[in-house]
């Protein structure tokens, strides 16, 4: 089968006499990878970079005639991020956690990440304007405000992190269940989640709400996670998913304490197999000396209090969010870490429908994104899983369900959980596939699908996934034989959500604005100046 | 009986006048007036037999500079002098950083003495004298 590319799009056919022809016979061809959740830019990410010279010094990248220099390891510098994604055949990455107030910073950084298309999700779950309107029951006004915010921050989706918990963290507290009251705001996490899901539907957003659950990282939290999914059942209209739980591995813990820590993967997988209103991504642990970072400030503090960490960053953002960073070394010999690794894979293997779950490491939380090939190997090769499990903590080995799971992913399934499924969940119609009309983002790997038993020879296949034979971005060859050969900037996608009537930007709102933020109303929104190559997507909302 | 010299701890820092002066321009009179000065505790001024506005010479291991003496009015600072950050103060500061990039700008011992006959050099004069440019 031939794939024809013209003007950056996939077309039916081209005139072969003056076309460049790539002979991909005996190779694996996929659409460019689409990452649904990877912290690659923004204030938080950069603070993580800033506090880890010890991490950078062990992974340095030299300047070449074409490419810029930089550093890794767990949070690579911007240029290196682009290069490394591209070398894995990824062409689109979602930056899932952007504080609205710091959106300009995120966009400035995204501009410096070449070779990939990107978009950001704005943290809105604890935004005072949203909380006040949800508490009042005025979801329509809430929707209009959120539309204004999505536009104003040049963002792509609604991100909700530990709803209610971040606001509580303002005074050093947290919420512990869906029905705890959020101090000072007369509402509960349940109200926020369901309210936001309804708002998301009203706005006809291409992606669902992108949810980081309450109680993340707490033993026994799988119950909260199932409660969260149940709460959203009522919003489901039977057509398409209405919620996405991100890095669900961190929300699938069973056991009542760290000492009795175990996997809640089976319960979560069973629920997801029986319901169609949710999608999830995993947040797979890859055993690395990495840097955890999340807007979930209280979680990071709790993690810090477990001990053994030398650095703790907390960064609250007024009226909107919080954040935390801790360098973290996931070790195979640590029982909890090893069980976490197992949970991620158990979920991946037990959720039957590959269109319901997606592969992420929650970069850099579970491990840096350039460890994806390792995760692929664990998915497509039981042998690879066994090899790693053998090196894990004995207690974790005993508790792991992995020996009972025979499933081995095919290349097709792998393509779903890394591009087709993610593109669909994100509502990116022209990405994630190679049909006519799709963007010409193609990755070609040196894997012969007909002659290779990928499960048995997992190591060379893993290597091939990390070193694309070709990556084509918008019809341009950007990687050849794992070498960067061109560095186009990549686009930043953002939504222009058009509501029937705009939100009331009246004196009252401006007064409140002045009261709530320390930036002037006029100076708050992100302007066009901040996006080097924009791709505006216009959406008509139903409110 | 007035003393010849006092050994004091030097503190440097910002003042609002220095801030205004630097923004008006490094060559401005305001900058000169607000930076080529040294604030002393009234008791130390008395010890040296000075009057506010008289010139003093401040000397450290690293250099020596003549500035105008002024009274510190916010609170007692016996045994300390305060100089607004700027070229005059930096003449007597050390480039020793303890290997972290930050020079020693404050908290070290200097000697201060009356210098009624020595002029306070202007920015240009001081640059010429110290750097020959």
């Amino acid at each position, binding site marked *: 089968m031939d794939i024809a590319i013209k003007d950056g799009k996939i077309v039916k056919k081209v005139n072969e006499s003056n076309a460049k022809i790539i002979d991909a016979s005996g190779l694996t061809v996929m659409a460019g990878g689409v990452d649904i959740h990877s912290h690659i830019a923004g204030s938080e990410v950069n603070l993580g970079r800033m*506090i*880890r*010279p*010890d*991490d950078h*010094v062990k992974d340095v990248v030299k300047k070449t005639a074409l490419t810029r220099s930089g550093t890794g390891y767990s949070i690579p510098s911007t240029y290196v991020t682009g290069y490394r994604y591209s070398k894995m055949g990824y062409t689109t990455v979602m930056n899932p956690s952007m504080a609205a107030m710091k959106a300009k910073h995120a966009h400035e950084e995204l501009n410096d990440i070449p070779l990939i298309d990107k978009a950001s999700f704005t943290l809105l779950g604890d935004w005072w304007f949203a909380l006040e309107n949800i508490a009042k029951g005025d979801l329509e006004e809430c929707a209009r405000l959120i539309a204004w915010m999505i536009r104003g921050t040049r963002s792509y989706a609604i991100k909700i992190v530990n709803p209610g918990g971040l606001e509580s963290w303002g005074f050093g507290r947290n919420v512990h269940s869906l029905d705890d009251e959020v101090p000072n705001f007369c509402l509960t996490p349940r109200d926020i989640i369901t309210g936001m899901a309804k708002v998301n539907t009203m706005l006809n957003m291409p992606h669902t709400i992108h949810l980081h659950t309450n109680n993340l990282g707490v033993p026994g939290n799988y119950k909260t996670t199932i409660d969260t999914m149940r709460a959203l059942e009522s919003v489901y209209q039977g057509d398409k998913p209405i919620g996405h739980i991100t890095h669900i591995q961190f929300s699938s813990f069973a056991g009542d304490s760290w000492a009795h820590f175990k996997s809640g993967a089976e319960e979560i997988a069973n629920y997801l197999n029986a319901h169609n209103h949710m999608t999830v991504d995993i947040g797979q642990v890859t055993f690395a000396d990495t840097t955890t970072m999340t807007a979930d400030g209280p979680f990071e503090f709790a993690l810090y209090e477990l001990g053994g960490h*030398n*650095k703790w960053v907390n960064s609250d953002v007024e009226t909107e969010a919080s954040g935390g960073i801790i360098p973290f070394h996931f070790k195979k010999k640590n029982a909890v870490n090893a069980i976490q690794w197992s949970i991620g894979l158990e979920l991946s293997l037990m959720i039957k429908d590959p269109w319901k779950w997606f592969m992420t490491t929650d970069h850099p939380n579970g491990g840096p994104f350039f460890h994806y090939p390792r995760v692929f190997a664990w998915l497509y090769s039981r042998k690879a899983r066994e090899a790693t499990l053998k090196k894990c903590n004995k207690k974790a080995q005993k508790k792991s369900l992995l020996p009972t799971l025979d499933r081995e992913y095919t290349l097709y399934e792998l393509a779903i959980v890394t591009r087709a499924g993610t593109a669909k969940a994100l509502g990116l119609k022209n990405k994630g596939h190679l049909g006519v009309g799709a963007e010409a983002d193609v990755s070609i790997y040196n894997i012969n699908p007909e002659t290779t038993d990928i499960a048995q020879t997992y190591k060379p296949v893993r290597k091939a996934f990390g070193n694309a034979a070709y990556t084509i971005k918008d019809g341009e060859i950007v990687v050849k034989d794992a070498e960067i050969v061109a560095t186009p900037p990549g686009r930043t996608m953002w939504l222009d959500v058009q509501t029937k009537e705009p939100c009331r930007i009246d004196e009252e709102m401006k007064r409140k604005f002045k009261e709530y933020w320390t930036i002037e109303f006029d100076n708050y929104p992100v302007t066009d100046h901040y996006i080097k190559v924009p791709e505006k997507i216009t959406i008509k909302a139903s409110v | 009986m007035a003393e010849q010299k006092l050994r004091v701890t030097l503190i440097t820092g910002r003042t609002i006048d220095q801030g205004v002066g630097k923004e008006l321009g490094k060559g401005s009179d305001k900058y000169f007036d607000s930076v080529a000065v040294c604030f002393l505790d009234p008791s130390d001024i008395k010890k040296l037999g000075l009057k506010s506005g008289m010139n003093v010479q401040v000397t450290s291991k690293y250099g020596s500079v003549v500035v105008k003496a002024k009274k510190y009015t916010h609170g007692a600072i016996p045994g300390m002098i305060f100089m607004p950050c700027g070229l005059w103060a930096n003449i007597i500061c050390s480039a020793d950083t*303890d*290997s972290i990039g930050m020079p020693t700008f404050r908290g070290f011992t200097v000697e201060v003495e009356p210098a009624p006959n020595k002029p306070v050099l202007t920015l240009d004069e001081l640059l010429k004298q110290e750097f020959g440019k």
Partner: protein
Amino acid sequence: MITITPKRVFTVPVQAACISADVFAGKPLEEIKKLSITEGKETITLDDAFNITEDKTIETPNITLTGDFSKVKRIGQGMKTGEIIINGDAGMHTGEKLAGGKIIVNGNSGGWTGSEMKKGLIEIHGNSGDYTASPYRGTSTGMKGGVITIDGNVGTDVGCYLQGGIIRIKGSAGRYLGYHMLDGTIFVEKDCAIRAGACMTGGKIIINGTIELLMPTFTIDSIKPKVKIDATQNAQGPFYVFLGDIAERGTGKIFALKATNPAFKDYEKYL
């Protein structure tokens, strides 16, 4: 033995991690000459900057450096075996991450000498700079083993995050000696500046001279007649023994010679 002397006075820093017995081992002289180093921003060969000769009759030391190497950084970095003698001053990061072998500096040594060292011996017959035996920025695992001896004085922040091994200082020590150390021994024969042992959680610092000021976060434990420096040697007291840093809930020990620290008499009331 390879002998290296500078061809000129260096005006900009030279990074020469390749000057190491491991790297030279088994290489013919011509190949050694072609090893690449940087002088400022320029990449040059070892030969461009140094006169290099070989004397096959001498086995140890493997490398002798003669002249002013104070601008030459990273000599013997990560070396596992062999011996380097520097007759002159050595630059920064000398013997960084040393994993074995021996480096002798007959002169002064720059900052970060023996940083993150694991094994081996560094002898400095002069002074040593700031951050001797201390790790890189942001790293909380320091020197793990081996011995560093310094005949002269040391700068500030020496032995930070020390996890093992011995640092012997015949002269005086600067501020923040043994900052945040977890284990290991530091022995200072002369005086010690302020904030010794700040944030330490383990290990011992022995000071035969005067401590300028003890951190208030240390609490007196006892008075001991002597203390063990290593398997073969004791320091003769009596010593005041302080425990700390209590702000870090640490159990590190500072041994301060009673005779030279009369200021600590006040603490005796708590014994």
